[in-house]
């Protein structure tokens, strides 16, 4: 493998990271919205959020990307590959983060919300000041775990023609026929990104477990 091929891989790794970061960044507010709806007092809101989560958890990510790409085109909204996969991964992240944070919100002891009620705090203050800071801390290991899944999941973006790390590897392997070497390098690159994140998540989990003992 030549230097320019390695550079091509590194450049594509950049797109993998950008796509992950953007989907995660948009996924955070959307996921927060899903989690708040899922835990709200309003039955229609809860219903809507529950179905949203069900749909994304019950179908393959690949299908979700297809539906966004071809479905939006069918509705007359022709997005380029970049926008399409960004929308697809953001929606995907909103559902998964929404479910992770729902669990975390519900794990905050009831007494906390009760004290907030007794202090006369309204919904936004109860959430922003009391519940969410504790919930987000509880959810941090699972949230990092999802980020790792998301980074690996972006390899599916190649299916609609978006060139990220996996796709770049495919292109190079088709030229030099050294599939094992190329995909070995590609895998190593994913590993170098994901492994430290996983370690960090596991460390936080141990730390929180020790603190709650």
């Amino acid at each position, binding site marked *: 493998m030549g230097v320019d091929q390695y550079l091509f891989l590194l450049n594509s790794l950049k797109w993998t990271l950008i796509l992950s970061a953007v989907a995660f960044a948009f996924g955070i507010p959307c996921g927060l919205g899903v989690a708040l709806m899922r835990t709200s007092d309003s039955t229609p809101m809860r219903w809507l959020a529950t179905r949203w989560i069900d749909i994304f958890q019950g179908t393959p990510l690949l299908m979700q990307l297809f539906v966004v790409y071809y479905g939006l085109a069918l509705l007359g909204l022709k997005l380029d590959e970049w926008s399409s996969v960004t929308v697809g991964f953001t929606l995907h992240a909103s559902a998964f983060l929404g479910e992770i944070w729902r669990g975390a919100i519900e794990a905050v*002891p009831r*007494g*906390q919300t*009760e*004290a907030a*009620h*007794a*202090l*006369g*705090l*309204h919904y936004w*203050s109860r959430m922003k*000041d*009391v519940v969410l*800071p*504790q919930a987000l*801390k509880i959810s941090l290991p699972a949230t990092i775990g999802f980020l790792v899944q998301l980074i690996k999941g972006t390899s599916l973006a190649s299916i609609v023609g978006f060139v990220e790390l996996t796709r770049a590897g495919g292109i190079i392997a088709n030229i030099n026929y050294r599939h094992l070497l190329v995909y070995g390098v590609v895998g190593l690159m994913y590993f170098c990104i994901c492994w430290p994140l996983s370690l960090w998540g596991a460390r936080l989990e141990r730390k929180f477990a020790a603190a709650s003992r």
Partner: protein
Amino acid sequence: MTQTRQAAPMILMEGVEKWYGQFKALTDINLEVNSGEKIVLCGPSGSGKSTLIRCINHLEPIQKGRIVVDGVTLGHDTKSIDAVRRGAGMVFQQFNLFPHMTVLENCTLSPLRTRGLKKDAADALARKFLARVQILDQAEKYPAQLSGGQQQRVAIARALCMEPKVMLFDEPTSALDPEMVKEVLDTMVELARDGMTMIVVTHEMGFARQVADRVIFMASGQIVEEEPPEQFFQAPKHERTRKFLGEILRQH
């Protein structure tokens, strides 16, 4: 009829019924608490003591009857609930301090959010009440760094920062190690001396003798007996009260 106008009670409960689904937790509760009065509420576990005081600030909605707090009739609307909650401070058995906030932040949150105080004013208010429960020196610490007794005193200060008309205590010393009970009770006695209207769910009978104007005994969701402490302890009228007092005294 006399002309002296009877002041409206600070808390009025009339024919209150409370159901948890199919389970009737409160039956025909009638209670009047005047301004400055101190009520001790006792009774066996599961008799509805917590439920009763939690209905007063609408932590639990009621199905029947009427609750009026400082002239505001409690409805299901935000306006009346807000008004009642701002006038009633509550202290819980498990303290329920916010663990991610310092002692000072715990105390300033409600003044900042519900009364629109500026940070300086809220800080000053919090420091005043922290000094009053003698824990000002811990203001910058987090709850987990304090002992149980200290945490409960912070919880009292936090409630006082709303400058409430009434304080509701739900077994404030039950979760404490024995050696910390006294510091919390002393704080409450002092509060009582300053004229606060208080309803205290507790089995600390010494406290009841010392500060209560009336002791109320509850069983199975009903008020069984309501007496000044002398009568309550010396000549309880009901068999269930006698039995309960016998058990309490045996434990202590």
